[in-house]
């Protein structure tokens, strides 16, 4: 029995485990791409890839914020509502009040960042459960969005504003540039700054972090503030895409973000995540939508597939990392 386990696919069992632990998600992503390509050759085309990358940029912003929150042993359920609030503020300021695009965007993102800060402060200062805090603020934020928009959809006709989603630098649409920039910045923040180290330490062992002089209030507040900020950017891109401010958008967006994080190896026990992993998780979710649309499978099944893929991926991860348990 013991002898049998030693080799898997010609690799030492231990090495195989390490390999899958590190790159397992990439392997899944590749298998998926090959599979969809065979089913529908149009999937492979450059224009489709650009298309997917543009679409996932919104979820990517939210997922990066979410991965910070989850890594500190929390969650940010308010991001979907943040999207709606940002959208309504933009609609109100640009279409009804005649503000310029830049000041309107700055105000909208400041508001979403402020809400993130409130989330973080409530969670860290009063030691409240992140789930409960963000579940509650989510209700307040969405209500606020309805108040701001007056319950009506506000069309935004400003063509420059719509350019935020459609403008291109060469062949690359603007949202992809934002995605690349955000990915690089997130990587630096998590792996090359003191703040990143604090996020990991607080998430893995809060008591030990406190005993090492780490400020829980500063770290967690900043974490949720960043999540709010990124949700704000996602809101701007989303609103530019639809060219309309609505208070009912973004429902369920936190689910896709959490899914991307989990697929990317972010642990709900805290203290473990990687930016490349989350990025791959984001693309897996994107490919599930895109691939199934291309193949022509009903959207009901997309949702089911997403659920099944997440459970499968996490299960695989558990089996692979069993020893670390």
């Amino acid at each position, binding site marked *: 029995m013991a002898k049998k386990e030693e080799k898997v696919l010609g690799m030492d069992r231990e090495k195989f485990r390490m390999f899958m632990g590190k790159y397992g998600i990439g392997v899944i992503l590749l298998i998926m791409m090959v599979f969809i390509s065979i089913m529908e050759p149009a999937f492979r085309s450059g224009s489709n890839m650009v298309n997917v990358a543009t679409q996932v940029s919104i979820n990517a912003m939210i997922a990066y914020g979410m991965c910070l929150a989850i890594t500190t042993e929390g969650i940010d359920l308010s991001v979907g509502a943040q999207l709606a609030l940002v959208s309504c503020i933009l609609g109100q300021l640009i279409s009804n009040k005649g503000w310029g695009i830049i000041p309107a965007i700055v105000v909208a993102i400041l508001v979403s960042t402020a809400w993130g800060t409130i989330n973080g402060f409530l969670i860290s200062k009063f030691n409240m459960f992140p789930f409960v805090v963000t579940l509650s603020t989510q209700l307040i934020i969405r209500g606020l969005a309805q108040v701001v928009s007056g319950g009506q959809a506000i069309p935004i006709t400003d063509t420059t504003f719509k350019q935020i989603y459609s403008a291109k630098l060469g062949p690359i649409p603007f949202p992809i540039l934002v995605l690349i920039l955000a990915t690089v910045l997130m990587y630096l923040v998590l792996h090359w*700054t003191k703040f990143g*180290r604090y996020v990991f330490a607080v998430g893995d062992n809060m008591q030990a972090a406190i005993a090492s002089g*780490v400020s829980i209030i500063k770290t967690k507040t900043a974490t949720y503030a960043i999540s709010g900020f990124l949700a704000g950017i996602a809101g701007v891109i989303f609103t530019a895409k639809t060219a309309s401010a609505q208070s009912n958008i973004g429902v369920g967006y936190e689910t896709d973000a959490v899914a991307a994080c989990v697929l990317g190896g972010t642990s709900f026990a805290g203290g473990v995540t990687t930016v490349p992993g989350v990025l791959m998780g984001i693309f897996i979710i994107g490919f599930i939508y895109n691939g199934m649309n291309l193949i022509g499978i009903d959207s009901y099944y997309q949702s089911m597939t997403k659920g099944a893929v997440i459970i499968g991926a996490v299960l695989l991860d558990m089996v692979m990392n069993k020893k670390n348990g």
Partner: protein
Amino acid sequence: MAEEMKKKEEYVLECHGISKAFGGTQALKDVELLVRAGEVHALLGENGAGKSTLMKCIIGLHQQDEGTIQFEGKPYSVKGPVEALNAGISMIHQELNPEPHLSIAETIFLKREDTRGIFLNKKAQNERAEEILRKFDFPHSAKTLMKELTLAQMQMVEIIKAVSCNARLIIMDEPTSSLDSEETEHLFRTIRDLKSKGVAIIYISHRMEEIFEICDHVSVFRDGTYVGERSMEGVTRDELISMMVGRKVENVFPKTDCEIGDVVFKVEGLSGKGFEDISFEVRKGEILGISGLVGSGRSETMRGIFGMDPITAGQMYLEGKEIKIKKPSQAIKQGICMVNEDRKNFGLALHRSIRENMALPTLPLKQKAPLLNKKQEEKDCLDMGKMLTLKAASIEHEAFSLSGGNQQKVVLAKWLLANPKVLILDEPTRGVDVGAKSEIHSLMCEFAAKGMAVIMISSELPEVMGMSDRILIYHEGKINGEVKREEILSGDENQESILRRAFGGK
């Protein structure tokens, strides 16, 4: 035939030729263990010697690759702790993991509840539990919740549970590691009582004094092999230590005398939760030992000084200047560092790398640029690892992959990188094997020689007496006496006199 019967009755547990490998590592190699009925049998060995692996084979958490186990003369093979308990073997783990919201009765009867139809018969269960608790003179009612008990009491509940399941062999893994002297005495009384009822006990401990006090036989392990068995009568401490480490240990405590300089740190009238009106000073190059029972306010004082708990009154002076510390980050900035007694909860982020753990407290001091200087950090960590003889494949490995002794070295490293003026060590050698323990003792002397002021809390009297230049003895939140090294060396003060003060005497 009759002779054979007699021989079989003599041993309650017989393990022969047990081997177990994990991947490429041979954790146990042809190991023997013979436990007689009604005896207390000690297992001794450094961490990683194979004691825990063997115990896990016995309670069915591991299956041995080779070898046989016989229990009460019959071949014995179980697939887990529940089956083991049904067969009559129970293990009390070092780190108890009770369900805090269950009552004592519910804990004792977990998985074998009294039922009436599909409903729990709580009344009958509580009455039965009450009866068992009375037999052990347990001070709480069966309805008390586990979370309201002290660690010692939780442990006692585990023992009571084992006995109520009719266990004939109880394995105790470091049962006294979180008990104070009084609680230890109580545990020993219980062990003697169990012994007289014919229950055999396997007693795993690093504390030699306890093994001599309570055990009948000792089996020594080294690097996964069985070194031998000795009767406690006639064996000496030095002999056991040399069996364990395979070499002769001359001096157990490597205390070197170094020059003691000016006062570095002084507290006056410090009070807080669990301690009152504490005044002391510690000098450059001095090792100040703190003795006293667990809960006497030793750790509480130090946590207060380090900013982990609030201080309600008193002043602190560092190099003559008054300082205020409200949180650990301020203490670290001032040069006061503390190695906490609870490594798992306050010491390490176990899923993060050795490097990240080592660098964490000093990030604000050493990393001023927006992006981390990982090269400098790596150099610092490697240098520190070398100085502490840290055994790790790489500093990028996660902290949980290390043994207890090496984890403790990582904790020491993270504080040494802060270049402390005052280093507080709370039980620095708890759960650490003999080899690493002696290394940590040597390191403490090195720190002192470099001019640090070292404050060491320890529950092990020989350690405090062997390592300290001066000892403060705590009793119920206050300092009840001070002993100097010369007084110990001259024999004016001894274990007894220190213990007497710890219990409130003069």
